[in-house]
């Protein structure tokens, strides 16, 4: 069968981190590259401290907006245990991009559950290909902690086959004019950081 399977991307984190914007930029880049695109995100309780997951699929033909377990090319997470929680989506040879951020669930901050102390070791054990970066710190150096999502986006872009100029165009079209340069800087920082992290 000559059918080309769609490329699947999963983004995870917690409410308020800009997961949905990041997934919109991935979708836009894929559209600009001429692909069919479908996205899905779980709404509802996101602003109230819950987990957030967004999925993007693109290819010559896409049916399901949902990613099958074990098939995503890239899993990117702005929170460490959310990366572990959603590891089942990633293909064994897929790329995991995880920011060294910790968002404490309410159960942990209230002292009724424990955030795993060995989270880095778990991440390294779980993922065959892992880019582990300090997206928040990189975002601050770019000019604002708020663009950590776009730093992660830059890093995950190295795991996809979309051309660099479509990424820049996609970022530009999805953020307000006055934050365009900041977001492009963040994207580049993530993309370059991923390249150096992958080669180290």
């Amino acid at each position, binding site marked *: 069968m000559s059918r080309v399977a769609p490329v699947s991307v999963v983004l995870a984190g917690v409410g308020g981190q800009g997961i949905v914007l990041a997934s919109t930029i991935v979708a836009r880049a894929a559209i600009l590259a001429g692909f069919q695109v479908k996205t899905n995100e779980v709404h509802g309780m996101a602003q109230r401290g819950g987990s957030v997951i967004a999925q993007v699929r693109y290819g010559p033909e896409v049916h399901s907006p949902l990613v099958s377990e074990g098939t995503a090319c890239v899993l990117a997470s702005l929170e460490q245990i959310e990366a572990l929680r959603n590891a089942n989506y990633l293909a064994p040879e897929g790329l995991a991009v995880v920011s060294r951020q910790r968002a404490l669930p*309410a159960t942990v901050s209230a002292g009724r559950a424990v955030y795993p102390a060995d989270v880095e070791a778990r991440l390294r054990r779980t993922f065959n290909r892992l880019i582990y970066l300090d997206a928040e710190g990189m975002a601050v150096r770019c000019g604002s902690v708020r663009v950590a999502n776009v730093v992660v986006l830059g890093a995950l872009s190295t795991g996809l086959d979309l051309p660099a100029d479509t990424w820049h165009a996609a970022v530009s079209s999805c953020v307000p004019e006055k934050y365009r340069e900041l977001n492009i800087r963040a994207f580049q920082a993530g993309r370059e950081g991923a390249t150096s992290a992958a080669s180290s």
Partner: protein
Amino acid sequence: MSELLSGNQAVARGAYEAGATVATGYPGTPSTEILEEAARFKPEIYCEWSPNEKVALEVAAGAALAGARCIVTMKHVGLNVASDPLMTLSYLGVEGGLVVCVADDPGMHSSQNEQDTRHYARLAKVPLFEPADSQEAKDFVGAALDVSESFRTPVILRSTTRVSHSRSLVALGERRALPRAVAFQKNPARYVPIPLWGRVMRTEVEERLGRLAEAAERSPANRIEWRDRELGIITASIAYQYVREVWPEASVLKLGFSYPFPDGLIRQFAAGARRLLIVEELDAILEEHVRSLGLACHGRDVVPGVGELSPTVLLAARARLEGKPAPRTALRGDPGDLPVRPPVLCPGCPHRGIFYALGRQDVIVTGDIGCYSLGVFKPLDRVDTILCMGAGVSMAQGFEKAGVRQKVVGIIGDSTFFHSGITGLLDIVYNKGTAAIIVMDNRTTAMTGHQDHPGTGRTLMGEPTAALSIAEIGRACGVRRVHEVNPYDLETTQRVLAEAIQANEPALVVSVAPCALARRTPVGPAREVSAEACVDCGQCLGLGCPALEAAGDGVRISELLCRGCGLCEQVCPVGAIAARGAP
């Protein structure tokens, strides 16, 4: 031109292009964005948030009898509320098209049950459309409005969470003009179902169903895709998309105009495929019908009927059908010990003060649908029951009349009070109850993303309007003991609640403070803990505030998260919490 639209955006766009001029609804995940998007097409479309779904459908029914094209939006449980007008509107029929856009929530992402709206199409004897992506969501609204007018019947357009909240490219079109002038032609034999005329309508409804079935046979929304004929799959809605990925080689009968069932098409498809499989989300409605036609098929024996479907779920179903072991497991990052991340009341949420105060009372708390359902979680743990919109008030009366030992407190939000809390309050007053009812009035419909309601002073069209007072409504219902409290003032709140609970008459306590997410400014100055003064007693952690963090040797307050509500300062027994930087 194409645009990446969610299913909900596409429904609104479809209504616009099809010349709809009236859109009504009540917010409810996953349907809410339909009407919010429709409101962007003002003034071409008049849009309103109605107090509840019944009112929304009745408003649209009036507009449709006058010839307007209408959509009504709600979540699945909203149709329970609107089912009364739907059942008889089916008899009256419509002049202008009327499409009830209902979003189901398989998997219960944000709902209290998993009911299947397709049953309502059969119950009300009205046609059903089920889009499988955003393009169909847009196209089917237009097709449904056309069917509605041609056959003089309300139509249900059923979406699901994954159709409503998935985005895909949609080809946009121009707006069609309404094909007629709006006017009412008096015709009581058609619009008044007293038994004399109602019996005639009843017969016409059955006859209409027959003609609709013929239309479904011919509808381009129903199509056979012949591929390999070893396996033929009948499916609809989002399940179609999963089927195409999991069984790319199989032939498919895809239903979009799915009720009344196109029996001829089903028989033709079954005759052409060696084996037949039904893949449908939730109840086995299609499967039971196919079996009733005398056709053997697989379905519920391999495809689960509880929870939502997904490609992963269907891959396991395929393995079951083929008698093979389940597909290999994926990477596992969670050995089962990762801390869960339940949604919580936001930092600064005004509901927190009420729940904390209730924690000091030996009462039964009947809760309701809204953010304040989160008060069920530890450490607040102060909601004992939740049933449906309005039951927070009415069930309190039931507990009391059953004769429970404790006093009963009913909790309900402002939007929910307007939706269906008022009649429960009337019942308590009329039938001599003594429950204390607390309206958590945060001046918005918070859970679904801050929609206006009759208390906010603003319409969905963005116009200022009367802001109804809940306290005044309580008095008008006959409640003599009505109090308004500021939930950030814990001492007063506790005193007022204690008095309301002890009173031997109905009491209404309106807790008034705007939603912490909706307000632009913090409630007050951010707080901090003095490490020297903190005795690590954990009293403040009982508030369940995400800004408070148990640090092992005391408590810390996140400057980033703290909204300065000051509740922690009030509950600290040793005065260790104060405004940040205060002397």
